[in-house]
């Protein structure tokens, strides 16, 4: 495929360029920031701002005292710019009364909050969210679990998939602020307990396919009575039920999907699926899929380029712990934390197991490095869910956030309402080893809640990555990043002209003199039940200089741009760089 070469196109689509068109300056003040607009040595890295910004949502788990498994698992969140106005909107998945069945006509709904970020005089901006659920047609009433985001119909607007107990729902973004439920018209159906999902163009035909993880064969009628160690009624282990297989749907390119679970080989192995991440783990240029399973071995579905996958999880070393035992895996962070150019996997597990760090050698062979990297001991006392790599301090090293919350009664909280509360974790990546930075995170990290979903993106467009965290049976939290602003950054939005418009799956490197190339993949999946910003964010450290940006597009072709300015959002349109460039 020959590509025309155009000049570099810089950040024209997003509304964050300062009036003079140069490097973006941080705002002088923000309503949720200290008056100085900066951060003193003692001020927290993150400030919880959900209520202050109008993000008013409380998850309803519908707990009845019957200890139904599904009550404790939800729900997720999606961060995506549904109206293409340059800022991230928030979609929150709702549970509801569990006994009500797959579809309800009354009760709480999922919610879409439009980001009405405004720029005022002198760069002053205000972050405010408006509930546009009804207008958008997203008042879904299922027992919701998670959300996935992708432009499945290549119209340039991000669409939305909602997973639920007993159903999946595909919403087509109409491009006018509204969505249409096209599940049936698209030929999609999954009556199982679906959890995380991912849009991934596994056959590289330019149409985003859909992978849906399913969990257990639990149903209210088959509910089992389980007890904790002291004999008190408690939620069952996933081992009390049978895992059910994931599903893979091929996008036929005409608005319809075909269930290819069986012919693709995806049905040949399965566990109790909770987390899904995509990446090119064996470095062959084709997207693979990693699935975090609860109490069953995780799967690494290696793409064989012919529409089939083979699970190489156990052989790869990324399926179980060093003793060969499966762990209670929930969330996934997929990314190049050690800056060696390959995607590594961080997997959150249940309390007592420690969270796993599988380091990739670039060929899909993984080493369990949780102890070596300093992540074993600090995670032992936590049950982790939503997570991702993100460079919160823009120093060029991917850090970690983990939303935590127990699934079984915590002894110290026995007798209290919802005795499953845990604090969230923040880890700073220091040269490939991790330091617990939770104490610096501020009050938001001192509060114990039942954390589940987490989505990542620069919500206030101020040059650093923020986090939205969902809590089971509790309020959503918006953690606005207030880390010191001494470091530089670069955000990239990729565009392809016709197919796979957001370039999902592209592999992007930022080259800097004397420093290793920083690699990130365009994706919205990972974490737990959640979808994060499709834009890429690179922390650059103390030097603003970017030598070049290299994009390996999803079809394998490469393009290179030079003269990229930092501290701004840059849109890279396919065909505007130097085609075929290495890097």
């Amino acid at each position, binding site marked *: 495929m020959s590509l025309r070469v155009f000049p570099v196109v810089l950040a024209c689509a997003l509304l964050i360029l300062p009036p003079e068109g140069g490097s973006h300056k941080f705002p002088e003040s923000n309503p949720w920031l200290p008056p100085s607009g900066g951060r003193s040595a003692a001020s927290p890295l993150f400030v919880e701002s959900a209520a202050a910004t109008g993000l008013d949502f409380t998850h309803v788990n519908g707990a009845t005292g019957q200890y139904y498994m599904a009550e404790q698992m939800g729900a997720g969140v999606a961060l995506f710019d549904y109206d293409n106005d340059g800022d991230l909107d928030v979609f929150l998945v709702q549970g509801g009364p569990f006994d009500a069945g797959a579809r309800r006509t009354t009760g709480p709904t999922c919610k879409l909050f439009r980001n009405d970020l405004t720029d005022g005089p002198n760069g002053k901006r205000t972050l405010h969210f408006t509930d546009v659920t009804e207008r958008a047609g997203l008042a879904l009433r299922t027992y919701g679990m998670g959300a996935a985001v992708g432009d499945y119909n290549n119209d340039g607007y991000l669409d939305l998939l909602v997973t639920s107990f007993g159903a999946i729902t595909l919403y087509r973004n109409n491009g006018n602020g509204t969505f249409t439920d096209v599940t049936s018209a698209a030929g999609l159906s999954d009556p199982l307990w679906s959890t995380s999902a991912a849009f991934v163009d596994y056959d590289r035909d330019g149409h985003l396919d859909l992978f849906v993880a399913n969990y257990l064969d639990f149903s209210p009628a088959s509910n089992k*009575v389980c007890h904790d160690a002291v004999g008190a009624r408690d939620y069952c282990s996933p081992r009390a039920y*049978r895992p059910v297989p994931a599903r893979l749907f091929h996008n036929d390119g005409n608005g319809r999907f075909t269930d290819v679970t069986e012919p693709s080989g995806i049905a040949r192995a399965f566990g109790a699926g909770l987390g899904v991440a995509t990446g090119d783990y064996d470095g062959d240029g084709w997207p693979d899929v990693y699935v975090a399973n609860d109490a069953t071995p995780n799967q690494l579905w290696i793409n064989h380029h012919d529409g089939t996958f083979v699970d190489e999880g156990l052989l790869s070393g990324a399926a179980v712990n060093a*003793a060969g035992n499966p762990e209670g895996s929930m969330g996934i962070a997929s990314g190049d934390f050690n800056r060696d150019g390959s995607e590594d996997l961080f997997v959150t597990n249940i309390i007592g197991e420690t969270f796993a760090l599988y380091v990739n050698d670039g060929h899909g062979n993984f080493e369990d490095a949780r102890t070596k990297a300093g992540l074993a001991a600090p995670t032992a006392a936590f049950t982790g869910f939503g997570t991702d790599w993100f460079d919160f301090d823009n120093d060029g090293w991917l850090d970690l956030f983990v939303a935590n919350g127990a699934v079984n009664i915590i002894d110290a909280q026995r007798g209290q309402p919802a005795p499953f509360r845990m604090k969230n974790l923040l880890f700073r990546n220091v040269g490939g080893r991790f330091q617990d930075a939770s104490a610096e995170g501020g009050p938001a990290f001192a509060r114990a809640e039942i954390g589940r979903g987490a989505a990542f993106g620069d919500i206030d467009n101020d040059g650093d990555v923020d986090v939205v965290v969902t809590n089971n049976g509790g309020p959503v939290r918006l953690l606005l990043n207030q880390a010191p602003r001494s470091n530089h950054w670069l955000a990239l939005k990729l565009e392809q002209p016709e197919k796979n418009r957001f370039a999902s799956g592209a592999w992007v490197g930022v080259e800097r003199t004397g420093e290793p190339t920083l690699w990130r993949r365009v994706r919205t999946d990972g974490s737990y039940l959640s979808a994060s910003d499709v834009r890429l964010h690179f922390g650059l450290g103390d030097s603003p200089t970017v030598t070049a940006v290299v994009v390996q597009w999803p079809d394998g072709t490469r393009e290179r741009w030079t003269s990229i300015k930092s501290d701004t959002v840059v849109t890279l349109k396919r065909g505007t760089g130097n085609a075929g460039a290495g890097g």
Partner: protein
Amino acid sequence: MALALVGTPARAQDGVPPLPRVALDTFPPAARDAIAVAQRDATAKSTDAGAVGAFARVLQAWEQWDAAHEAYARAQALAPRAFEWRYLDAVVLQRLARPADAAAQLSQALAISPDYLPARVKLAEAWLDAGEAERSAGSFAAVSDPAAQPAAAFGLGRIAAAGGRHEEAVKQFERAVELFPEFGAAYYGLAQSYRALGRRDDARRALEQHARYGARWPAVEDPVLASVTTLRDDAGAILQRGIKLAESGDVEGAITAHETALVRDPSLAQAHANLISLYGRARNWPKADEHYRAAVAAGVDVASAQYDYGVVLGLQERWSEAAEAYRKALAVNPLHAGAHNNLGQTLERARDFTAAAAEYRRAVESEPTLRIARFNLGRMLIALGRNEDAIVELRKLIEPRDAEAPRYLFALSTAHLRAGHRDEAVKWATDAKDLALQFGQAELAAAIERDLASIR
């Protein structure tokens, strides 16, 4: 019995940690009563290391890890030269995933009793988990008792693998599985090192063994820890022992344990549910029936109860009643692959092949890895003359090539033969026969040979 809302802790004195606070009023009666007795004794004799340590052991038995650790800390402070409390505290710390702290405790415990083998093994393992490879290797190498050799070889293999010395790791892992052939973890380690050396076929074979043996681990006799694990005699603990006995094949022992648990707690519905299949395995039909009725009346885990009862009825060749039980199981859990498969078998016996094939297909849809259901589906499709469809299904059973595979390959051969693909039929029948011989299935091999002779 009057219980305080929170157990009153003994005061810290002269650096001696206080007794833990335990919110006993939030515990169910069995746990509350058992812990309260030990707590009262420890509170009354708060400077008696034996009483405090006994309290800690009870807390450990009830998996109150943090409280147990606190109580052990006090017992150790009161009796610094006692091995038992340090060792058990280390076990608790390992359970709390604090391997560095556990290693420190084990080092001190071994300074008191250097020859206690489980402590020496645990110390080496704790160092390894704490990332102290050199110390761990030294500890493993110093373990000479034959009972601990498999664990030592496994540990040394892990250390070598972590250091990138995979040739050495392979030697250690191979030694571990030679000493303890059911060592699932060692097979996993072996597979990883084979892979690192580019021996992927060997790695896959090792992973098959890992899948076969799972978490089986070479046990080292540990009387000190056994003093904790045998403390509990409540219904829940007895039920768990019964489940383990059932898993080990001791049906009579499992039945006794389950019945004892029910005597302790007649409301223990799970015991009724488990006893359906246990009495079925013992061919005691009236008792299986009795517990089936009790489980259904309790309304707990009804799908499993109905399924197990269906199996019991099938064992008695009461096929129509078995079918009814499977249908009841499926009414509760439509995804129950086993119930679909077994219902298919009852329909097949009634020669309703179309309905049987439909049930087998539902079983496969629910659980695509349930090979027996796919095999049954393939057979039914052959019986219905849908040979090409049968080939599609049976081809999915070509891998893995284990002891089950010969009959699957034979069925595939049959489907090809019926579809008129003589060469394919010969190929798969030959393959099936060779594999059958490889797994010592002489009778099946002879049957395949007879078919082959007629085809040729």
